[in-house]
């Protein structure tokens, strides 16, 4: 064997220890490639064409996940420059803004991606509701999703304090005061969160640890569960076909996993299929799903870069506990609540958010009817769609009012007169 042949063989062998299937050219190879890869195995080998339609999901779940990825990457980079102490935090921001290479872009991207993630997660929830995606057998994944929404808000809220400027300080002051309105436990919860009764170095350190360690670990864990369930239950069923699990559901039993086939299903189909549809009507995840995921990732990254280059993340004066801005506003996603707090601290601070979370968690169990899955605004679920639609619109309107239409002393202002 010549030396050249030896090197070539070694490289080829080495390559195949990493990529065992090679570039897949047949459906069998494509399935094998998906299944043999740790990262790709999160997908099933085949997907329903309906779930690939952009207008069905708008890719909102994936966009939320990409935002999380971008936030993790930029967040880790920002951590290299950030010191979580009141003396140094604001200085860190200024250094990022003025001397760190790519500092402004990193920070802008982190900031805007964080806002975008809140929006994307909310819209994802709306999409899942309006397509009936929380119905049997996906009830629990809806609950996990509600948990992820709350954690997304928590991540954004804890990150809000870190720049230690006036905006951060007062938004967190207002936000944590809302938490303090809860009867009985409110003050204790606030004390636990802030590490004291006022926002100081203790609060900053707690928010930093929550933001960089506790909540990310929790979110990643929940995302894993969320994905696992999607992988096991499949995306919600396409229109025009009654779910195969109706019979089992009617009996009150829990249906077998809808996606429990693999290579074996392709090679040797069981006599009694438990799948809800014919795999032959599905398309290979490679390339149809993967390619779309790649395109969406590129689109998200490009869009975030454009936004980050055009708009700077806000940074106001150094936090000054003796100078209260008028009005002091919570982060925008809590301004709907602050608007309610303006009318009644108990209703806005405790009753409404508590009821919302409770209702969201109970949605799949309060609406057990299995009909109307997999299609937008199914006429079979008119009442549910109306109820949720009103909830979503009220949330958006209240948030807009709190954000744009409230001036000094929380008085009504027109945004174009300011």
């Amino acid at each position, binding site marked *: 064997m010549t030396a050249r042949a030896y090197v070539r063989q070694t490289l080829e062998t080495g390559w195949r220890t990493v990529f065992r299937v090679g570039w897949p050219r047949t*459906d069998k190879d*494509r399935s094998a490639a998906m299944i043999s890869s740790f990262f790709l195995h999160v997908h099933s080998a085949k997907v329903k*064409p309906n779930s690939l339609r952009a207008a069905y999901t708008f890719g909102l779940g994936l966009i939320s996940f990409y935002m999380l990825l971008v936030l993790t990457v930029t967040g880790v980079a920002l951590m290299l420059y950030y010191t979580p102490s009141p*003396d140094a935090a604001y*200085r860190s921001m*200024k*250094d990022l*803004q*003025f*001397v760190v*290479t*790519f500092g402004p*872009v990193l920070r802008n991207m982190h900031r805007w991606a964080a806002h975008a993630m809140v929006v994307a997660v909310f819209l994802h929830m709306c999409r899942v509701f309006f397509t009936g995606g929380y119905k049997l057998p996906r009830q629990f994944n809806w609950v996990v999703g509600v948990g992820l929404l709350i954690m997304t808000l928590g991540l954004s809220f804890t990150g809000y304090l870190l720049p230690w*400027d*006036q905006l951060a300080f007062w938004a967190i002051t207002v936000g944590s005061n809302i938490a303090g309105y809860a009867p009985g436990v409110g003050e204790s919860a606030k004390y636990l969160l802030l590490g004291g009764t006022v926002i100081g170095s203790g609060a900053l350190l707690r928010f930093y640890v929550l933001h960089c360690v506790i909540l990310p670990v929790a979110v990643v864990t929940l995302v894993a569960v969320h994905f696992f369930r999607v992988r096991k239950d499949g995306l919600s069923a396409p229109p025009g076909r009654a779910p195969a699990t109706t019979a089992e559901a009617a009996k009150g039993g829990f249906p077998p996993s809808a996606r429990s086939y693999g290579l074996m299903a392709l090679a040797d189909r069981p006599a009694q299929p438990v799948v809800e549809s014919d795999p*032959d009507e*599905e*398309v*290979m995840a490679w*390339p*149809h799903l993967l*390619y*779309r995921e*790649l*395109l969406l990732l*590129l*689109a998200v*990254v*490009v869009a975030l*870069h*454009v936004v980050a*280059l055009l708009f700077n993340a806000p*940074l*106001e*004066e150094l936090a000054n506990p003796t*100078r209260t801005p008028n009005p002091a506003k919570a982060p925008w996603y809590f301004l709907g609540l602050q608007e309610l707090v303006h009318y009644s601290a108990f209703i806005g601070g405790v009753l409404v958010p508590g009821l919302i979370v409770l209702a969201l968690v109970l949605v799949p169990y309060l609406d057990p009817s299995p009909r109307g899955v997999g299609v937008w605004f199914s006429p079979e679920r008119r009442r549910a769609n109306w109820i949720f639609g009103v909830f979503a619109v009220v949330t958006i309107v209240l948030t807009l009012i709190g954000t744009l239409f409230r001036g000094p002393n929380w008085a009504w202002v027109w945004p174009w007169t300011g």
Partner: protein
Amino acid sequence: MRAPQTAPPWMHLAFAALSVAFLAIFSWVLLQESFAEWRTRQAEFLAIERQVKDPHALALAAHVGGIRQIWLRDIDLVDRCTTCHLGTDDPDFQVAKQPFATHSGTWLTTHPPDRFGCTICHGGQGEATNYRDAAHQPVAYWPEPVRPRELIEANCGVCHRERAPAEAFLLAEGRQRIAAAGCVACHDLPGFSPDEIQAPHLSSVGYKVRPDWVRSWLADPKTYLPRARMPNFRLQKQEIEDLNAFLLSQRETAPLDSSGVDWSKADSEHGRILFGEARCLSCHMVDDRGGLLGPDLSRVGSKVRRDWLFSFIKDPMHDQPDTRMLRYRFSDVEIRDVVAYLTTDLVDPEAPENAPAAGYLDPKQVAAGRDTFVKHGCFSCHRFNGLTPTAKIGPSLMAVGNRVVERPEFGSMNVVPTLANWLYLKLRQPDSLAEESRMPTFNFTEPEVASVVVALLSVRKADFPASRVTRAPSSTPYTPQGAFGALVSRYRCLSCHQVGGSGGTLSTVPLDRIGSQLQRSYLVSYLQNPSAVRVSIEERMPFFHMTPQEAATIADYVGAVLVDDSLERPFTADTEAARRGEQLYRRLGCHGCHIIGASGGYVGPDLSDTGHRLEAGWIERWLAAPQTWKPATLQPDYGLKAEDLRDLTAYLMTLTTSARGRNP
């Protein structure tokens, strides 16, 4: 039908387009970083440097590249201004345009950048590395933009807390004005003491003033005195009447009895002569001539009552215990003539005759006047028995320079909403701003307001370490006791002279070591009959009519107590030394400023009688280092050798006028 298992062409197109877009946007990020504003500036600087420097100097010049910063560790301040301002410490860039020009003046020598940075003096955001964010112009969310030239001295005052810092003329003027206007009466202000306020005691004012004068004074003090210290409180007509009644009812201490005085024989011409002899003009102004220590007397005859004035000149402390006015040893007849001169010659021809009597007997109106008195905080300046201020009537100004003003506070005034503009308007027209104001109008001129604004902007809550702050040395009031103390009090020496840093500043002669400077015999005769030594100075030592015993008491005391042992040294010299000293006197050109006999200049003191006037030890030490004794003196420091000092002193000690000739 099976879906095709290869990707459709539109996806490849989308992939290509997105990839190009990503490449483009990421290149944009890279370009933005590599063409950062500061990099462009540094390239420009290097190009200019190659033009202004010869190759040798260029090789030696410090390498420029990358972000430069000054970190002041003790106050944790970072200034990156020198990233672009690259020529500040290089004289080769005198004519270069900004941001490369050499720093003006000698400021970088007195305030080296490695100890002071840039923004302590200039303001602006030192951490920024581009023009806009550095806040060269006001910018959102940075409270301290670069100070324009007319306000920059406000930043001097953050560290220089003494009243009049050298070279910060506007700041010094502003602080003097704050002291003179008595701002501290109503506002807490660091560095100013309410003790500085000079306003008459009003408990017996009913005996002192005429009702018509009170009315016009309260309506607008400037109509009586253009230089009136009291501001205009913009009082309503009814308030003026009430206050008038209240003030005229204040009769606590009756004036000294003048019933024995025969006013029909009063000689105002004699009074005028006495007024001149006593050098009243050193402190008082009459028709735009005279000093500012006491009130302007141009129209005093229209203001005060005759009997009160008689009593006041006879014993100023009788109803004004804190007055700076001294007590002359006039006889009753002399006082009568001076009073006649003041009340008949110095009157306002436009003062209304037969003005309606104030209704000070109406207890309702007196009570209303008292309310007005309290409402406007008159007691903040005027001591008044029974009304002691518990808290200042105006808001505290302890950190006024940090105040943040918002647009609505300007009301209808359409100006840029900066603190400087707000303060300017507040001082010029207190009622022009949104908030209703009780603050009186001070009628400052525009330049005066500008200086006060600068001084107020300097009052900042800067947590600088003490090592960075300079203050005026604290002085404890000098209160001598015994017979000497009584004389100091009677003649109010400290209204004009300083001892131990306390006292007035009218006199150029501090008294701390006067006993070692002057010969006793000269002092005794000077106190009884002061003759000017510095002929060019308007203010003169008053003619007190002091008795010889009093002069001796003072001379004995200062000769024993107000001395400096380093000046008390025996001096011996021969005529040869005096001759050499005379030559030296000519050679140094001393006669350019000093008079001997009839020839010489008028800048310095007359030296004709030096041999009888000064102590030799003092002359010698003074000439050795004048500035150590009196920092602001015009006397040049010639750096004389010990022999020269002795020769010059020997010559000066031979100078006497024949009248009191001690030497032939």
